[in-house]
């Protein structure tokens, strides 16, 4: 089945230690998104890629970076995680950003910062 895969499902990192979360998709969608979701809150868009074009949300901290080496993979790098970065990180895909399209979500990676 075509799907969005996130690895790992649970990640524990230390305060200030860089961490990378990965997302892959078999849908061949050209848009990939990263969201941060804290407990009892709405998913917050961090950035998205339209093909190789990177679009950063204005309020996304510089501590968060992303890479998309090809259509299938997208990575979220947190350079120096703080305690406030502990959250669920959701990856999503869609077909076009300029044509309305629903999003397909992965299961998420729950990040714990110790």
């Amino acid at each position, binding site marked *: 089945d075509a799907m*969005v895969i*996130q690895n790992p*499902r649970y990640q524990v990192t230390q305060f200030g230690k860089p961490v990378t979360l990965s997302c892959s998709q078999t849908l061949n969608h050209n848009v990939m998104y990263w969201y941060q979701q804290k407990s*009892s*809150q*709405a*998913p917050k*868009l961090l950035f*998205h890629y*339209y093909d190789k074009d990177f*679009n950063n949300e204005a309020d996304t901290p510089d501590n968060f970076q992303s890479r998309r080496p090809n259509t299938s993979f997208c990575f979220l790098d947190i350079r120096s995680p703080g305690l406030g970065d502990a959250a669920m990180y*959701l990856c*999503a895909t869609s077909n076009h*950003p*300029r*044509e*309305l*399209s*629903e*999003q*397909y*979500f*992965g*299961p*998420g990676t*729950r990040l714990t910062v110790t």
Partner: protein
Amino acid sequence: AQSVTQLDSQVPVFEEAPVELRCNYSSSVSVYLFWYVQYPNQGLQLLLKYLSGSTLVKGINGFEAEFNKSQTSFHLRKPSVHISDTAEYFCAVSALSGGSYIPTFGRGTSLIVHP
């Protein structure tokens, strides 16, 4: 810019009872509306969407929603809930901004179905 308000953070209901989860939005342009469901430790899954046409939209798992432009609402309903409907429900709105459709999510409503 658009925004979404889900007034109820938690809705408890007994099994086989009807339920309505409320969603209101604000936007200065035409919008497209979605409801997503999130089960524990899983990603979001699309329940239904309104793009155009009939204001009553039917989705998966027996859910439906009605778009009301004058009241800027898109409430989700189910006539008879099941234990398995216990989950977090998110309303989302997409509007054209700078050439792209970027969704904005509400903070979610936790539906708790009791036996």
